[in-house]
């Protein structure tokens, strides 16, 4: 089944980072939203509905934002799919446009983490994994150790993901970190969950990103006649309960997310020119690219070390710098990925531009559920 694409009329975000306590969730969201509206040349009165992705924002965060932004009274919904929350909000807005419910939908992904999360994120206390001491970094560390043993990959090759993404972030003014790092810094960083160290992990961040999506009627309402990048489809799947003793890095959930998004968008894996991939940890970028079928199984680490996933390589991954460098305010990440794809497809990405980018994919994986191969996975396909 194919739904109508959503046109991206405008995008905006604030630089991700660690903000002081007086920089509020609502305030960050308002700044990102105003940037997206300004980018589209749209007034608040054009917006039919607001879709907000967040995890730690508390009850009706979206309505609190609307009341400060000036969208009070409008339909507002809050979307929580852990690290895929922002992309899930994009999906729901796309569906509402395709259904004809709205013509102009504003999506905001936002998170204020640095004043409420310490030592790393973990599953809900009610999940069995939490009872045995699971933290997200530990899951990816176990993934990395098994991956190295099964595929002959090296620690250096996995660390190369961080080196690559930080090199890209030098050109991204919205990134939390904008300085290059070298391999020795990654290998010598303080251990978090062995074999992963501090620079294998995305930071705990604050930030907001916004996307203004339109139907063709919405574009006319905004007076936009120029061609805009389009969201062709947004896949959404959840992890399935695993039985047996199969490959713990099979990433079947990523395979299913990919297949769904190819079907929804009419785009195939060979059409993808760049990927914004959920590199919450270095190894995650590798196994998820393999799960999607965009990199051959077991070769992702070697591909990274060989430069195939860098700018100018075979398939650039995370030209923005990814979560490792842009930062990872969890509910904002999916919306920030759509901002990056929009800039790339417009040719506005400056020093991190993927030359000739026509089609891009953004992937988020949010949360964990005991016994499954993941919480939620989203896949956004965009075309210029």
């Amino acid at each position, binding site marked *: 089944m194919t739904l109508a694409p959503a046109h991206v009329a405008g995008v905006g975000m604030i630089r991700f980072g660690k903000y002081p306590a007086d920089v509020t969730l609502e305030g960050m969201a308002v700044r990102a939203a105003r940037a997206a509206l300004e980018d589209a040349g749209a007034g608040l009165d054009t917006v039919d509905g607001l879709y907000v992705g967040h995890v730690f924002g508390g009850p009706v965060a979206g309505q609190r934002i609307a009341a400060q932004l000036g969208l009070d009274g409008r339909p507002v919904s809050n979307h929580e799919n852990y690290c895929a929350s922002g992309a899930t909000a994009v999906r729901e807005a796309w569906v509402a446009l395709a259904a004809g419910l709205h013509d102009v939908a504003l999506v905001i992904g936002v998170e204020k983490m640095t004043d409420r999360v310490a030592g790393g994120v973990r599953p809900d206390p009610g999940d069995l994994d939490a009872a*045995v001491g699971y933290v997200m970094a530990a899951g990816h*560390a176990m993934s990395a150790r098994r991956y190295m043993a099964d595929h002959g990959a090296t620690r250096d090759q996995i660390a190369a993901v961080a080196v690559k993404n930080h090199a890209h972030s030098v050109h991204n003014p919205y990134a939390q970190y904008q300085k290059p790092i070298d391999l020795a810094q990654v290998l010598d960083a303080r251990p978090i*969950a062995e074999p992963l160290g501090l620079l294998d992990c995305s930071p705990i961040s604050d930030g907001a990103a916004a996307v203004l999506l339109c139907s063709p009627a919405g574009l006319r309402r905004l007076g936009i006649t120029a061609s805009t990048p389009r969201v062709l489809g947004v896949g959404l799947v959840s992890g399935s*309960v695993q039985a047996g003793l199969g490959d*713990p890095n099979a990433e079947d959930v990523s395979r299913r997310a990919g297949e769904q998004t190819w079907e929804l968008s009419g785009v195939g894996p060979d059409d993808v020119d760049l990927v914004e991939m959920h590199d919450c940890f270095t190894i995650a970028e590798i196994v998820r690219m393999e799960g999607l079928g965009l990199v051959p199984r077991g070769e992702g680490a070697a591909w990274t070390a060989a430069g195939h996933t860098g700018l100018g390589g075979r398939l650039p991954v995370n030209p923005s710098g990814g979560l490792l460098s842009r930062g990872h305010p969890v509910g904002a990440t999916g919306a920030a990925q759509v901002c990056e794809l929009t800039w790339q497809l417009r040719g506005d990405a400056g020093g991190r531009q993927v030359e000739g980018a026509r089609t891009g994919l953004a992937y988020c994986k949010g949360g964990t559920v005991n016994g499954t191969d993941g919480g939620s996975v989203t896949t956004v396909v965009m075309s210029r």
Partner: protein
Amino acid sequence: MSTTTTVDRPFRADLLTLDPPRLLGSRCSACGTTTFPPRGFCPGCRSGAELETVPLTTEGRICSFTVVRQAPPGVEVPYVLAQVDLPSDEVRLMATVVGVAPERVALDQPVALELHPVGTADDGTTLLGYRFRAHPEEVAA
């Protein structure tokens, strides 16, 4: 005057028995798939066939592991966290591993189930959880 005797109990009654100390799984009568924790459906065949609660083997091996060096406040580090395979039941689960120095843990290392106190209930009862202990390494060559 009365005396009360408190006895230990599992931190979750559906997960384990104390005597003998065993984890509980569910086994599908149609395809034989065993899962931990026990579930209300079979993830192997999803046939809706009856599921039986069964005790699981206590013998496992390490599929993968990590040494957690940083955790949220209140959690003591380091500790070894592992994906443990129970080969005879074809079950994989996550648990901490004790009885071996972090730098000596290895893939495929044999481990055995062990129950241990994880907290105290409001009535003073000790709550028992599960973990795995590395086998002594002096196995005869």
